[in-house]
């Protein structure tokens, strides 16, 4: 008999192996949906690692995602760097920035943090545009690589696997324990000797790292980087909505949010091509009223009823 704690790992490994075969069987259309799903799974899961236990709603995903894409575009177009070099550098730049931002803002509580992160994407976009405009110049940020959707899919799958492995380890570590205490009551956490600021900053850096890495990896898919497109505040909101739809209490929660959400989005786009945004808005309302605790909440509700 294997230890019970290893079973989820085996299940996850099996699923991962299956997911790896998707590009071999899916046609272009389903593969493009699968890429979208993986991108949001990686972003939402890493978002939930920080925002789930701490209850700090970070709207900064778009900012870090943008840094990833923009640095890849800038490095490849204007400095003849390889895609791999830029994709390796970008997440560390974002992590450094996340450390600075976290240091400056995570000592504040609640709503100040939300508002600050909301403006962050816009601030970084302007900052980078200003630097590029005044010191670098540009001839169009093209990301011309030979990577196609299959390669991007596999890279995203590797990142997603990394995020899940990290999340699984975190749940069993001192840092994860500290996070849970902190999420329940920050005062208590501080009294029992947890360095709350350091804990929060570390986790914030992790989400920044993952978002920038994802942004860098999907940049070849866009082919051309426009600052006002990659630094999209919309992305930050979608990631939050997907994670909340799935539920943030479990590591696999966001996954259960992303998949139905992406498919639903697709159905809406096809069925209501002239009113997509409006129908999407109505759907959000229904979700918030109908399943306030997310899909994982719904599932555990069913489980509880069955055992009762």
């Amino acid at each position: 008999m294997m230890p019970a704690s290893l079973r989820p790992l085996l299940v996850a490994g099996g699923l991962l192996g299956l997911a790896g075969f998707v590009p071999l069987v899916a046609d272009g259309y389903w593969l493009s949906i699968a890429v979208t799903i993986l991108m949001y799974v990686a972003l939402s899961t890493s978002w939930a690692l920080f925002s789930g236990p701490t209850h700090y709603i970070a709207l900064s995903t778009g900012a870090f995602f943008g840094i990833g894409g923009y640095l890849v575009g800038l490095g490849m177009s204007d400095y003849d760097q390889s895609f791999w070099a830029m994709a390796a550098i970008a997440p560390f730049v974002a992590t450094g920035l996340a450390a600075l931002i976290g240091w400056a803002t995570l000592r504040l509580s609640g709503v100040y943090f939300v508002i600050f992160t909301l403006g962050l994407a816009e601030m970084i976009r302007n900052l980078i545009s200003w630097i590029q405009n005044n010191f670098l110049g540009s001839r169009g940020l093209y990301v011309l690589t030979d990577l196609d959707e299959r390669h991007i899919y596999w890279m995203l799958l590797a990142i997603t696997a990394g995020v899940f492995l990290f999340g699984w380890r975190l749940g069993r570590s001192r840092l994860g324990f500290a996070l849970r205490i902190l999420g329940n009551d920050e005062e208590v956490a501080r009294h029992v000797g947890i360095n709350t600021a350091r804990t929060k900053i570390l986790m914030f850096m992790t989400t920044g790292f993952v978002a920038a890495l994802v942004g860098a990896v999907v940049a070849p898919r866009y082919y051309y980087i426009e600052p006002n497109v990659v630094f999209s505040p919309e992305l930050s909101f979608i990631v939050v909505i997907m994670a909340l739809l799935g539920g943030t209490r479990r590591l696999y929660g966001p996954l259960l949010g992303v998949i139905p959400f992406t498919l639903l989005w697709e159905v809406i786009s096809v069925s209501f091509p002239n009113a997509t945004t409006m129908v999407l808005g109505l759907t959000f309302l229904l979700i918030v009223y109908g399943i306030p605790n997310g899909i994982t909440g719904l599932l555990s509700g069913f489980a509880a009823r069955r055992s009762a």
Partner: protein
Amino acid sequence: MRKLFLGATALTAALLATTAFAADPIKIGRVVHMTGPAAGGDAVSHTPNVKLWVKQVNDRGGLKVGDEMRLIEMVEYDDKSNPAEMIKAVQRLATQDDVDFLLSPWGTGFNAAAAPIFAKYGYPQISVTNITDEIPELSERFPGMFFTLGSTTGFVEGLRDTLNKLRDSGAIGNKVAMVNVADSFGIELAAVARELLPAAGYEIVFDKSYPLGTADLSPVVKGAKAAEPDAFIAFSYPPDTFALTEQAIIEDLNVGAFYTAVATAFPAYAGKFGSKIEGNLGAGGVNLDQEAMKAYRAAFTKHNDGPPEYWAAATYYAGLQVLEQAIEGAGTTDRQAVTDFIKANEFDTAIGAISFDEHNESRHYWTVGQWKDGAFNAVAGVGVPVGMEPVAKDGWN
């Protein structure tokens, strides 16, 4: 039950009868920015042209493919101005809707994002609102991608040549004030201008940028005025094109040449400022004297209750004409045959005769236009006759 069955049979028979007479329609797909920041550009330059073209073609019985007349059926999706959504929607059109052809999307970035999918399924991509200096590299990667509205450098060269003409006539001197919006388009054009203008003997006495979405541009215009330039150039997007012009009127910025980029060619620009913008220069322009252009503008105005803008609209319509003539000329909906036909032939369009060079670039486009008597006529272009010679701007009256 029996009655129902009979009814169904009759219906099927009727359907079969109609399909026997009319050939299947040609399905043409388009991803539209119906919502989001790029929606405005699509609504002005692309959508009304597509509607006009489909109506014209279907009114005369459809496209002649071989011996058949086939109607056009459009399949359109909204991408919310988001490139990731664009990619999904193009994939959907290609593999789920099985469209015969795809129309190019609005915007340089969107054309780039869509290009790999067009190429994968062999669709010709006659791109219009796609201004770049990477044409040779892109056409090598995507052999079915065509370019019709010019390159970044082409645009700045047109501007430089216009300034040269004004300088030769004594209307302006050498001092140029230059501003740009700090977004990809503005940064690129300004970077090219910083090389080309000094090389032509101009002195850039003021060089500033402002972030996309800046509401108050009065410091920019005041700063430019203090530098006492002979010419003012702004590589601007629509909102700032309007805001800079408004500030220039308020500050009475007196220059012999006043240039703003995107949206100067829109009828709404003249609608807002009236006679004050007489002599203003801007990106684009069309030759209003050409018969084909006159016919296009008349048809557009009749169909849409208003005239088209004076830049990309006519070229986008010309792109639709290229597709139409290529399908009819090749006599098939085979995409490779149509692509080859586009490369090999000359096309008679609203902007005149156009053909494509070895990099799939149509070197027939206007680069600078000037407002005169309520119309925006081309004063500089590549491979096309201009509508008039540029004249000095004489105040804001």
